[in-house]
């Protein structure tokens, strides 16, 4: 146990920014721990990793971890991460987002990141509520459940985050929960090792804003519900839709190979450098002017 704590401390900005803003009983600390353990097991250097987030309780995570950290605007973490990755492809990038962040305001960036397949990992902490702003219903609040803006029960229907990622073309999609800590550690590691865009949905508990409104008696009871209300992918395969009703499926939901964006882009650029007759018109314009001719020549030499 003490070794585990040691690992976690190595990667936390423990002298500066702790304790966290998170409530007692919140699942986010577990997610942060799982992420850190996955990073430690992979032996990633602290300088070689960026953690990018949006807004909300999950958005606060990067401030606590000792990497290159970027706390962006609401919903936009993946778009910032995309630019960062394009500028520094060797930098490993993890984005952490809540459910409102990832699939409400950031829904467009989420599906397009899934489709685009840039090599980075998105951890979506799904606690089915807007916690930081006080418990308003989110796109993953189940139908009929309460939020401060759904005082009579949610009229809308919820997103299946992992299913959305699969549908949008993500090449690695997994789901676990803050109860299944060891499984979560391993899934985050597998996601990071995957070449391409990977999504890990983490079912999490917000007792303060969701639990109390929905008469879930304690944070522990919420964890207990994750244990009892979920099945593995293998178990699910043997169950009927009726048996699966009200349960969520854990494990690797999608894993496939697809050429990664930057790899394809750079291979194309190298091919262009080697074939001067391609895009001759543009080349001619660039060659006309010293400064751009220089950049053209310098890159051709390098390629």
């Amino acid at each position, binding site marked *: 146990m003490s070794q585990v704590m040691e690992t976690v401390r190595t990667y936390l900005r423990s002298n500066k920014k702790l304790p966290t803003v998170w409530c007692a009983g919140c699942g986010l600390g577990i997610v942060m721990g799982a992420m850190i353990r996955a990073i430690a097991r992979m032996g990633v250097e602290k300088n070689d990793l960026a953690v990018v987030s949006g807004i909300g309780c999950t958005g606060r995570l990067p401030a606590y971890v000792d990497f290159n950290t970027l*706390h*962006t605007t609401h919903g936009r973490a993946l778009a910032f991460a995309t630019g*960062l990755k394009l*500028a520094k492809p060797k930098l490993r990038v993890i984005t952490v987002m809540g459910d409102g962040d990832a699939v409400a305001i950031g829904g467009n960036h989420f599906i397009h990141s899934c489709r685009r397949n840039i090599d980075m990992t998105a951890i979506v902490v799904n606690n089915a509520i807007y916690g930081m702003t006080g418990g308003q219903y989110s796109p993953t609040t189940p139908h009929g459940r309460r939020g401060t803006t759904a005082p009579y029960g949610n009229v809308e229907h919820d997103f299946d985050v992992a299913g959305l990622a699969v549908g949008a073309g993500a090449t690695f999609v997994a789901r676990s929960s803050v109860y299944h800590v060891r499984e979560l550690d391993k899934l985050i590691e597998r996601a990071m090792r995957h070449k391409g865009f990977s999504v890990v949905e983490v079912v999490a508990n917000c007792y303060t804003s969701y639990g109390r409104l929905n008469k879930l008696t304690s944070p522990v009871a919420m964890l207990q519900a994750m244990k009892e209300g979920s099945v593995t992918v293998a178990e699910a395969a043997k169950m009927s839709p009726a048996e699966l009703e009200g349960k969520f499926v854990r494990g690797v939901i999608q894993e496939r190979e697809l050429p990664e964006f930057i790899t394809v882009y750079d291979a194309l650029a190298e091919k262009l450098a080697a074939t001067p007759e391609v895009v001759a018109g543009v080349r001619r*314009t660039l060659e006309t002017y010293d*400064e*751009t001719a220089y950049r053209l020549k310098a890159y051709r030499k390098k390629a």
Partner: protein
Amino acid sequence: MSVQIGRRKVIFLQGNEACALGALAAGVDLFAGYPITPSSEIAEFLSESLPLVGGRFIQMEDEIASMAAVIGASLGGAKAMTATSGPGFSLMQENIGFACIAEVPCVIVNVQRAGPSTGLPTQPAQMDVMQTRWGTHGDHSIIALSPTTVLECFTMTIECVSLAERYRTPVVLLMDEVVAHMRENASLLGPADCGMASRPRPAAGLADYCPFGASGDGVPPLAAFGGEYRFHVTGLTHDPHGFPTMVPREVDDNIRRIVSKVESRVDELASYEEFMLEDADVLLVAYGSTSRVAKASVRELRRAGVRAGLLRPRTIWPFSQKRLRELAPRLRLVVVPEMNLGQLVLEVERALCGAVPVRHVGRVDGNLFDPGEITAFALREAGR
């Protein structure tokens, strides 16, 4: 296509192409954008040329994402830019504010078209002057340049990159549809001739790197992600190390510094073109493609016996009052033609504080002014 004249090369170019070429000359290595008329040629040109020079191009899902990607790339150490028009510029405001508070160098080209909303996508306007200054929420500052010629589309793009890097701030190139789609000869200068500056970088081996500290000139050095220093960047008000703060003193320091690093340099950043101003007592103040027309009006007014002259601010924001105030004592009338219903004229009025009558003439039908209408307006206002 090109002619060598001394150190310069003269090329026949379109404004948008010149802008893209300027970006390449300035060393821009990342462009993220979303298609929108009348700016799309910039993205098209850079999608073709960036992979040829070792840069990268990406078409994002919208302008919000484009602006975000530009900021992300800049934090990774790239010189990054985007290009758009009014509707896209509106969407970018959110993350332009982030770039302001997080002090991330980036360039936004806004090829103005008539609005509001979808407006007239293919026709010119100057309706985003105030949005450029105040489009994003909260106190902040911004730098914006306005080109009038194809050559300036080129040189000002270089200047914008330079200013963004030097002052760690978003910089807007405020073009308009006419200057963007017009073709004319441009004798290209090099970045050195445009005064290319670079991003302040921290020294190596610092025990305590402060990415948001108040250094001597108000622009703290910025390291790149993935280098020697690990640091935190947030859109929350932050302390000198970049961590969120609610300490009133630190909050106050943060906001005042990001504003004053630009506003304290207003006269240093200001640049003008003056045309027939020597003896002028009727002053036209115009920028962008309107100033090309205003020059013709100045000539017409002179022929009609009015001593007219033109002051063309190249720097729109921060707006410098200095030259206007110097000229004020000998002026009897100031006319401000704009392709809007009165935006930069408000700054002109503020500068002159009622010392000289200031009259605005606006055109919002999607067409460029005709010299005659500015001339006729000025003659009427001058009591002729």
